[in-house]
């Protein structure tokens, strides 16, 4: 076997410090290899899954249920702790605090002004951000009252917004002061359609990147980065200001979709690390869970719809959730219980086939 790079580096550093000769260094490496071979590896048939589950479950019971933490007022909030752990393990599609960390390329990452301008430019503006919409169903009118200040803040012109409105409504309206009126009095439009149009106008996309509700610039090391609330990784990666090799989102489903399942696996580990914070849990447990969650090529939950629902054993599935369903279905289809896993052996009262429970002894008679 060969040692991992980081251990080799440590050996290298140690040898340098102690001034070891080449032969001594070789001996040291050999000793480390031997130690890993004998002591540091999991034993055969060790129940690594159970150990991982306990190691992650126990600190989770100790963790406070505190959901949010704010590091300064301008920071984008990200859920953490137990809530976040659950989100990751249950592979929730709608996470509480979707957020992106956008890295920028030169010169945007060194110039605060440019970074700020970029952050502002990706913030999504919908029509209700810059105008108030009201309707008069009797007169069949939709009135859009522009907020001059909001328009100015976002660097938009009234004409540009009106053009977007016209494109969506497929109709020209009249502008009086800062009130724009779409009148349908002369047409046979139904009230339902009018109502629908109003709803659509409320969410009309004016500028920025869809899905990004808020973006702030923070400093990390010697460069400026942008943190957002709301995600749209696919669109952001295409922007020329963005460093497409480092920008990430905390929505693991999105990562799986845009960067592939292996990237999602990395992200699961990273997010679990973040969620556990300073509670010390070995990385190996996280990576085992991450491997399991991404085993079938997509990101799935731990629960009955995901990993636990795919177990081979009927008893194991029935013991988890939906007992009746699994037992009747198994009876209907003539499933066989092989009693190979942990749960099913516990149920029938046999030794669990892990560790020493796996070993069979044969007695040699007559010697």
């Amino acid at each position, binding site marked *: 076997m060969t040692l*991992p790079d980081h251990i080799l580096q440590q050996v290298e550093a140690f040898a340098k410090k102690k001034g070891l000769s080449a032969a001594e260094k070789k001996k040291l490496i050999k000793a480390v290899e031997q130690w890993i071979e004998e002591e540091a590896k999991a034993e055969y048939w060790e129940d690594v899954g159970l150990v991982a589950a306990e190691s992650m479950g126990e600190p989770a019971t100790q963790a406070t249920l505190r959901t949010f933490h704010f590091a300064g007022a301008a920071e984008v909030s990200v859920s953490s702790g137990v809530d976040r752990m659950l989100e990751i393990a249950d592979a929730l599609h709608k996470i509480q605090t979707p957020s992106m960390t956008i890295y920028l390329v030169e010169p945007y990452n060194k110039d605060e002004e440019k970074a700020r301008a970029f952050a502002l430019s990706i913030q999504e503006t919908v029509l209700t951000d810059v105008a108030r919409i009201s309707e008069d169903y009797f007169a069949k009118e939709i009135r859009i009252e522009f907020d001059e200040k909001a328009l100015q803040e976002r660097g938009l012109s009234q004409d540009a917004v009106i053009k977007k409105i016209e494109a969506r409504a497929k109709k020209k309206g009249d502008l009086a002061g800062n009130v724009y009126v779409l009148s349908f009095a002369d047409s046979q439009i139904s009230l339902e359609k009018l109502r629908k149009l109003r709803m659509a106008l409320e969410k009309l996309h004016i500028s920025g990147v869809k899905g990004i509700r808020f973006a702030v610039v923070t400093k990390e090391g010697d460069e400026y980065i942008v943190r957002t609330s709301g995600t749209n990784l696919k669109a952001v990666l295409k922007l020329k200001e963005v460093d497409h090799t480092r920008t990430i989102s905390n929505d693991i489903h999105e990562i799986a979709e845009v960067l592939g399942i292996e990237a999602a696996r990395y992200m699961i580990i990273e997010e679990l690390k973040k969620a556990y914070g300073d509670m010390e849990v070995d990385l190996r447990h996280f990576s085992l869970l991450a*491997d399991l969650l*991404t085993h079938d090529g997509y990101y799935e939950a731990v629960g009955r719809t995901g990993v636990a629902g795919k177990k081979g054993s009927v008893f194991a599935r029935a013991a988890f959730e939906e007992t009746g369903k699994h037992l009747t279905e198994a009876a209907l289809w003539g499933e066989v219980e092989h009693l190979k896993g942990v749960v099913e052996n516990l149920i029938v009262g046999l030794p669990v086939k892990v560790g020493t429970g796996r070993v069979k002894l044969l007695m040699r008679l007559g010697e």
Partner: protein
Amino acid sequence: MAAKRSILDHVLVPKCRILSEDEVEELLKKYHLTKEQLPRILESDPVVKELGAKKGDVIEFVRNSPIAGKALYYRVVV
């Protein structure tokens, strides 16, 4: 925008390549596996698309693991 942007450049995406048929055979023999027992990757996965892999191909990932240094991982395209 100068060069074409590829998701394979992203830090989260490990180095990957499609294994040749001989290599696949060797791999399966080494671990006493059948192809169906390998972890999967969807045909619609962006990495698979970028590599141009077909159904049934095995992709090798060189993971940068903080525990094992470099770790090899294999996924079969389904």
